[in-house]
């Protein structure tokens, strides 16, 4: 019985090592390029927020099937610098006062500090000005 227990323990440790090893990923332009659904929502859901990082250094933030933010991204170590243009009126569902920005597009600078990289997901802190949000992203097919 003891031998079986030891055998199982060794296997468990080996498996945990293998799982963590196979899921680990390295942050790179190739890794980040593609479509990512935010906060583990469904990729096919029309209400999901999806960020698409293109290899040509542009990115688009989509929500409710519409592009809301577009801009350029630059990868620096574990940081992604974001230079983006959007109309705050796009987010009047989050704050009604933003409706007055209808038709007004402004530039915003932000960054994402990326961590906990997995093969098909990562977590990040987003920073725009004094606003900080934590999120997770899952790769869409």
């Amino acid at each position, binding site marked *: 019985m003891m031998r*079986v227990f030891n*055998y*199982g323990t060794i*296997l*468990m440790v080996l*498996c*945990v090592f*293998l*799982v963590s090893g196979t*899921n680990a990923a390295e942050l790179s332009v190739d890794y980040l390029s593609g479509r990512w659904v*935010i*906060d*583990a*929502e469904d990729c096919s859901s029309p209400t999901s*927020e999806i*960020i698409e990082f293109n290899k040509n250094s542009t990115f688009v*933030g989509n*929500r409710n099937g519409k592009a*809301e*933010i577009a801009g350029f991204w630059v990868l620096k170590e574990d940081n992604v610098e*974001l230079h*983006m243009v*959007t109309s*705050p009126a*796009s*987010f009047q*569902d*989050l*704050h009604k*006062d*933003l409706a007055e*920005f209808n038709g007004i597009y*402004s530039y*915003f600078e*932000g*960054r994402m*500090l990326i961590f*906990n990289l997995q093969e098909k*997901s990562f*977590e990040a*802190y*987003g*920073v*725009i*000005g*004094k*606003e*900080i*949000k*934590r*999120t*997770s992203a899952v790769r869409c097919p």
Partner: protein
Amino acid sequence: MNNISKNRVVNVNKVLVVLVATTICFTILPGFKTEAQASKGAAFLGGMVAGHVVTGAVSRSKRRTEAEESQAYSQQHYTRQTAPAPAAKPTAESRIKQLDKLAAGGYITPAEYKTKKKAILDEM
């Protein structure tokens, strides 16, 4: 039970242990979600933009109100001076930017950079 039967039982047990361990490793463990993965959010980028714009607008509005009050006060008591406003605490972003500059300039080592950045993030 003879020795051959005992060996078969031991082998079956080993196979069962392997199956259970493999199942746990490849199905249950990756299924655990972190706090951020489990949480739902309406809009990541949009939420930050909205917060930034609203906070900025509120700040501007507050500054304008304070300026208007200050002006009115000055008109009534133009000889009296107001106390200087306390210096604003630097934001996490500005501190990280400063850290980036220090690292880029070679003033701190990569290890010091990582430690300091982690400390800033932990404060959030």
